C-alpha cells in the first residue's frame, strides 16, 4: 500500500508549481546490500558512496580530499595517522558523528564477517584521542593509508546497536542490509532489492549541494538492449553501461548522448609460468620468456581497439592505466605489433612451427571479452600458434584459474587503491595466502617481492616512485603479463543531464547537474 500512496503523493507533488526533479537511472547490477562493510564490490561501494561517507573521499580526478575528516597527518616516524574529524556532522537520523563512530566503524569493518577487512591489515590499533580526533596506528609506516580507506564508510554506533547490526552478516538477515543511516548527501528513502531503490537529498548534509535533484530512483536493468531502449524512450535519464555496439546509436538518437571515459581497469594476458605441462600434455612453452614476448608482438592491440572496442579504449603498457598514482612514465611503451618478430622469437625458442595450447577467457565479465579473445586467437594463428579458445562464465572461470587449469588467460584488474602498488601486491608478488592471491600463473621474482614493502612503506615519494619504476620495468622485461588496453567507460544520458565519470566507475549522484 505504501508504494501506491507514494505514487499518488508524487503525482500530487508533480501537480504543484515547485519543480520536483526526479532523476532516474539504471545499471546492470543491483547493489546486493546496503551494508557498507559487508561486500567489497563496485556496484555496492559505488552506490553507497552517495549515502555513506568516509573520513576521506575521492574527487573528480580521483585525488584524495577531506570528507568526514578535515585534516590528517602522520604520527611520529610512520607510527600511524592522526585524523581530525569534521565538527557538526550528523547522520541521517539526526545523531551526531564523532570519534566513537570511527572506532565502531573500524571494529565493524575489520571484523571477520566484513569483506573489506583487508584494508585494515596494516592497522594495529585505533585510539580515540578526543571527540573529534582519532589516531590510527599501523604496524609499519603506511604513507598511502589515507588513499586506501576512501571507501571505508562511517556508520553510527548508536544506530547499529539499536538495530542489532553491530556486525555485518552473511548467513542471517541484518537490519543494515536494507536500511541505511549515513552522513552522505542522499538518504535511503525506500529499498526493494532487485527492483527499485529510492534516494532523497539529506537536508542536513554538511556540504554544498547544487545538483537540484529532489528524488533519485535506481532500477537495475540486466539486459543491456532493454536498458538502451529505456534510455531512448525517455523512461530513464541515465544508464551505465551502454554496450559498445550501441554507443553510436545512442549518440545518433536525438535527445540522448554517450559520455565516454576510461575506467581504471586494465585488460591483460596472463601465462602459466610455473606449470610443467600444458593442458594438452605437451611441455609448457610459456616458461620461456621469448614465447611470452612472441605473444605480446603477435597481438594487434590497435586493431582490437578499432574493431572490438569501436575506438573507445586506450592501449595499456603497464598493469595500471596512465594517470594512476605510481604509474611509471619511463615505461609507457607497449610492445609493438610485429608478427615477423613474433615468428622469429618463436623459432629462436625452438617452436618454428608454433604449438597448440588453450586460451581461457571469460564471456560475461569484461566489455566484449569473448569477441576480444576470438580476435586474439586469430592474431596468434597468423604467427603459427594453434589456439583453442575456452570461453566460460566468470563463476566457472575463477575456480578454473585457482585450480591451475589454464595455459594462457585473460584478466582485467582495477586497482582498488588507485595506486600501482595494488596490482603488484595481488598479481605479481610470489603467490601466497595474503600476497599474490591473484597470481594464478605463479610468476615469481625475488626483486619484485623485495620492492613491494618499499612501495608500501616508503615515505619519501621520490624513493617510492623509483621502486615503482624499477618494478614496472622488471614486469615488462619478464613479460609477466601482457597488458592490452584500458577498458572504456560508456554511460548514456539524456540531453539536459550532465554527469561526472570517475575511473573507478562510481556514479556520484551529487555531481549530476540537471538543466
Amino acid at each position, binding site marked *: 500500500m505504501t508504494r501506491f500512496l507514494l505514487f499518488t503523493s508524487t503525482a500530487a507533488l508533480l501537480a504543484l508549481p515547485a519543480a520536483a526533479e526526479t532523476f532516474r537511472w539504471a545499471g546492470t547490477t543491483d547493489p546486493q546490500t546496503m551494508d557498507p562493510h559487508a561486500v567489497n564490490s563496485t556496484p555496492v561501494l559505488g552506490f553507497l558512496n552517495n549515502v555513506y561517507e568516509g573520513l576521506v573521499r575521492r574527487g573528480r580526478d580521483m585525488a584524495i580530499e577531506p570528507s568526514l575528516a578535515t585534516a590528517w597527518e602522520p604520527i611520529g616516524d610512520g607510527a600511524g595517522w592522526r585524523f581530525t574529524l569534521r565538527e557538526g556532522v550528523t547522520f541521517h537520523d539526526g545523531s551526531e558523528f564523532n570519534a566513537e563512530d570511527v572506532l565502531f566503524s573500524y571494529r565493524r569493518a575489520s571484523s571477520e564477517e566484513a*569483506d573489506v577487512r583487508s584494508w585494515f591489515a596494516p592497522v594495529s590499533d585505533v585510539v580515540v584521542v578526543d571527540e573529534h580526533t582519532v589516531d590510527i596506528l599501523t604496524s609499519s609506516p603506511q604513507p598511502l593509508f589515507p588513499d586506501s580507506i576512501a571507501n571505508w564508510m562511517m556508520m553510527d554506533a548508536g544506530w547499529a546497536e539499536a538495530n542489532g547490526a553491530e556486525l555485518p*552478516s552473511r548467513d542471517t*538477515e541484518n537490519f543494515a542490509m536494507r536500511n541505511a543511516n549515513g552522513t552522505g548527501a542522499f538518504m535511503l528513502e525506500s529499498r526493494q532489492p532487485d527492483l527499485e531503490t529510492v534516494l532523497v537529498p539529506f537536508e542536513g548534509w554538511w556540504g554544498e549541494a547544487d545538483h537540484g535533484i529532489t528524488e533519485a530512483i535506481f532500477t537495475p536493468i540486466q539486459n543491456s*538492449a532493454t536498458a538502451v*531502449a529505456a534510455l531512448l524512450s525517455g523512461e530513464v535519464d541515465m544508464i551505465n553501461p551502454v554496450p559498445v555496439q550501441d554507443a553510436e546509436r545512442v549518440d545518433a538518437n536525438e535527445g540522448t548522448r554517450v559520455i565516454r571515459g576510461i575506467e581504471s581497469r586494465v585488460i591483460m594476458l596472463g601465462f602459466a609460468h610455473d606449470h610443467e605441462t600444458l593442458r594438452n600434455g605437451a611441455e609448457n612453452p610459456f616458461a620461456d620468456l621469448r614465447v611470452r614476448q612472441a605473444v605480446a608482438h603477435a597481438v594487434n592491440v590497435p586493431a582490437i581497439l578499432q574493431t572490438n572496442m569501436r575506438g573507445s579504449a586506450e592501449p595499456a603498457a603497464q598493469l595500471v592505466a596512465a594517470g594512476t598514482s605510481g604509474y611509471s612514465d619511463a615505461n609507457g611503451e607497449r610492445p609493438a605489433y610485429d608478427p615477423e618478430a613474433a615468428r622469429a622469437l618463436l623459432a629462436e625458442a625452438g617452436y618454428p612451427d608454433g604449438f597448440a595450447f588453450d586460451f581461457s577467457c571469460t564471456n560475461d565479465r569484461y566489455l566484449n571479452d569473448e569477441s576480444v579473445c576470438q580476435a586474439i586467437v586469430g592474431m596468434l594463428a597468423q604467427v603459427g600458434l594453434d589456439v583453442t579458445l575456452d570461453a566460460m562464465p566468470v563463476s*566457472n572461470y575463477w575456480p578454473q584459474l585457482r585450480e591451475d587449469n589454464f595455459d594462457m588467460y585473460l584478466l582485467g584488474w582495477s586497482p582498488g587503491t588507485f595506486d600501482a602498488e595494488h596490482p603488484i601486491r*595481488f598479481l605479481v608478488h610470489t603467490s601466497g595466502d595474503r600476497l599474490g*592471491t591473484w597470481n594464478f600463473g605463479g610468476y615469481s621474482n625475488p626483486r619484485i617481492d623485495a620492492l613491494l614493502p618499499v612501495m608500501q612503506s616508503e615515505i619519501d615519494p621520490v624513493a617510492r616512485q623509483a621502486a615503482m619504476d624499477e618494478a614496472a620495468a622488471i614486469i615488462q622485461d619478464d613479460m609477466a603479463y601482457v597488458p592490452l588496453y584500458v577498458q572504456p567507460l560508456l554511460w548514456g544520458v539524456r540531453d539536459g543531464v550532465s554527469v561526472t565519470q570517475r575511473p573507478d566507475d562510481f556514479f556520484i549522484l551529487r555531481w549530476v547537474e540537471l538543466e
Partner: protein
Amino acid sequence: MLSYILRRVFQSVLVLLVVGLVAFAMFRFVGDPVDTMLGQERTMQDIERLRESLGLNKPFFIQYWDFLVRAVQGDLGISYRQGRPVAEIIAERLPATLELAAVSGAFALIFGIVFGIFTAIRRDGFAANAIMTLSLIGVSLPTFLIGILLIYVFAVELRWLPSFGRGDVVDLGWWSTGFLTQSGLVALILPSITLGLYQMTLIMRLVRSEMLEVMRQDYIRFARARGLKDRAIHFRHALKNTLVPVITVTGLQLGSIIAFAIITETVFQWPGVGLLFINAIQFVDIPVMAAYLMLISVMFVAINLIVDLLYVAIDPRLRTDGKGA
C-alpha cells in the same frame, strides 16, 4: 481408486527427489559462489573459511540432504546474494510471475480460439492466410527477439508502452498486484504478448485443425441439412466438440508458460521468479537456484498429477480396483 492415487502421489514425490538430486549434482558446474561473494582483496583463508561455512566442501548428496532436511522444516536457506531468507524472496517475486502467466495464458487462449475458428471457417480467405503466415513468423522467432522488437516499436518509436518493469503495484497483504493501477496494467501488455505468442499460435493451429476435422463430420452435414444458421453450426455444434483437446493442452501449457517466463522476464526486467533465477545462476546463488527448481518441478508434477486424476475421474476404464469392469 485410492490405491491408484496413492501410487501416483508416491511416484510424484520420487520424481521430485530425483529432480533435486540432479539439480544439486549440476550446481558444481554452474560455478563457485565464493569468488563473487568475496571481493578482489580476499585471501585464500577467506575463501576456505567461506566454503566451510556454506558447506560447499561437502559432497553434493550431503549438501542435498542438508537442503532437504531444512526444506522439510520450511527453511529454504539464505540467499548468498541478498542475505535474506529464500522463501521470503520467492514469495515476494511469485505474484509478478503468476500475474504475467495468467494474463498471457488468457491472451493465448482467447486469441488462439478466435483466430483458430476464423481461419477454419474462412479457410481460403486473405485474412486467414495472413494470420497463418504471421503466426508462423511469430512461432519461429525466438522469444528474446520478439520482446526486443516489441520494445523498439511500442516503447522507443511510438512511446505508447513502457519498455521495462511492472509499473506501480498495490500490496494486498502478501500479494502485490499490478492489476489495480493504470501503469501496472499498461506494463503487462508487451510481456504478456511476448510470453503468450507461442502458446497462442499453438492453440490457434489446434483449434483450426480440430474445427476442420469436426466440420467434415456427419452431424454437421445433418445440421446444415436441417437448415440451421451458420452461426449456430459453428459455435454451438462445432466449437463445443473442438474444445476438449484444447482444454487439455492449455492445462499442460500453463506450467510451461511459468517456466518459459525466464526469458521474457529478463528482456522486460519483469521482477518475477524467472529473473530471480537468472540472477541466481550468474551469482551461483545455490539456495535460490535450488528453491526455484524445486518450485517449478513441484508445479509440473502437481499439474500432471491433477491431469492424471482427472482422466481417472472421466474414464472409468482406468480404475484398476474396478467394480466397473
